């Protein structure tokens, strides 16, 4: 059906037009305060919108600030790396010393056991009488000789364990976070220090062994 025909029908359909007209006139009228309520709603929304505008900016600024602080990388220069490596050597010295000091009181209690363990190695099993005497006398001389031997053994043990187990980085990295690759291994200075300590300990141990042997010889000579 074309528009012209429909327009013509619009004029012709008087009954239909009248019916719709009557329907529309009898329809309930718009409440008088409806527009007022609508304007109040619009104003409230506008206020809400203005409030909303401020908050995202504040939140975004805070977030940006935190992100900037968090994501800014620390400036690491070569001098910083050297400066960090230097005090690390000192720390390693500090850490090693208290461990040996701690080991002493623990080892001081089982003194007799250690000396007894040494005896069969040094004295031949063919002389049981000498052994008995030696046992009595060594128990007397222990307070002077045994702690020294123990100390030497402890130092040597510490030196050997640190040498043989380079994974025990925890000794020196208690205070240093393991976040930098230069902290994963010992520095050359640390290794040199440990070597020196191990050598000293070995020499002390040899000296001690010599003293024990000398003492044994003197005893046998007296007899």
């Amino acid at each position, binding site marked *: 059906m074309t528009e012209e025909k429909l327009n013509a029908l619009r004029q012709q359909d008087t009954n*239909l037009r009248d019916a719709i*007209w*009557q*329907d529309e006139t009898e*329809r*309930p009228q718009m409440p008088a305060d409806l527009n007022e309520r*609508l304007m109040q*709603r619009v104003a409230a929304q506008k206020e809400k919108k203005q409030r909303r505008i401020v908050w995202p900016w504040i939140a975004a600024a805070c977030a940006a600030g935190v992100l900037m602080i968090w994501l800014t990388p620390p400036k690491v220069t070569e001098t910083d790396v050297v400066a960090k490596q230097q005090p690390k050597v000192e720390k390693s010295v500090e850490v090693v010393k208290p461990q040996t000091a701690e080991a002493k009181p623990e080892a001081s209690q089982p003194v007799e056991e250690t000396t007894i363990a040494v005896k069969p190695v040094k004295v031949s099993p063919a002389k049981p009488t000498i052994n008995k005497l030696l046992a009595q006398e060594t128990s007397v001389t222990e307070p002077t000789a045994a702690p020294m031997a123990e100390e030497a053994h402890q130092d040597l043990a510490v030196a050997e364990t640190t040498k043989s187990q380079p994974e025990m980085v925890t000794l020196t990295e208690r205070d240093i976070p393991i976040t930098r690759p230069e902290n994963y291994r010992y520095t050359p200075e640390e290794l040199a220090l440990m070597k020196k300590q191990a050598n000293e300990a070995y020499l002390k141990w040899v000296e001690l062994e010599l003293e024990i042997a000398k003492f044994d010889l003197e005893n046998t000579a007296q007899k």
Partner: protein
Amino acid sequence: MTIDIEVNLIEGLRQQSPKAQQQMLGRYGNAVFAQVARLVPAVEDAEEVYQDVFVKVFKNINMYDATQSSLKTWISHIAYNESISFLRKKSVQLIYYEDREGEAEKLSESEVEATFGHPNPETVQLIRAAIKHLPPDERAVITMFYYEEMSLKEIAYVTESIPTTVASKLSRTRKKLCKIIKMLQS
């Protein structure tokens, strides 16, 4: 309304001027409420939809294109969509006549013209009763055409359709009304 006044009104609305908003409500408020109340039966619901319509109009005034439609048609388009979506959302139970067997289509054009053309108060009352049995969209289209005297193009814009579809819908609705009248008479 002259073009100048409408241009000024639109400019004021774009600046979110309360004065322009009130002016718009004064000019188009009643027509919009009537359009909404035609589709949404309960007055409370119609008030709610009416407010939603104008909030949307004030919010989206920048999207209005004067080359596509008049301001009144644009507002009618928003009102129609809001009303239909309200009915869908609320699932309002509506009882209306549906011509499933296509009996209305069998009626001749002369028979329909005779029913609507010859002035008769009794027929007018029957038509009023019959209109209540139409679905909301058909009721809206027939009112826009006969009461608001909108062109097919304008109705097509409001209902998001094309003029030929509107024309066939109008023709079908006329026949359907005639069929309902006959049913009521029998």
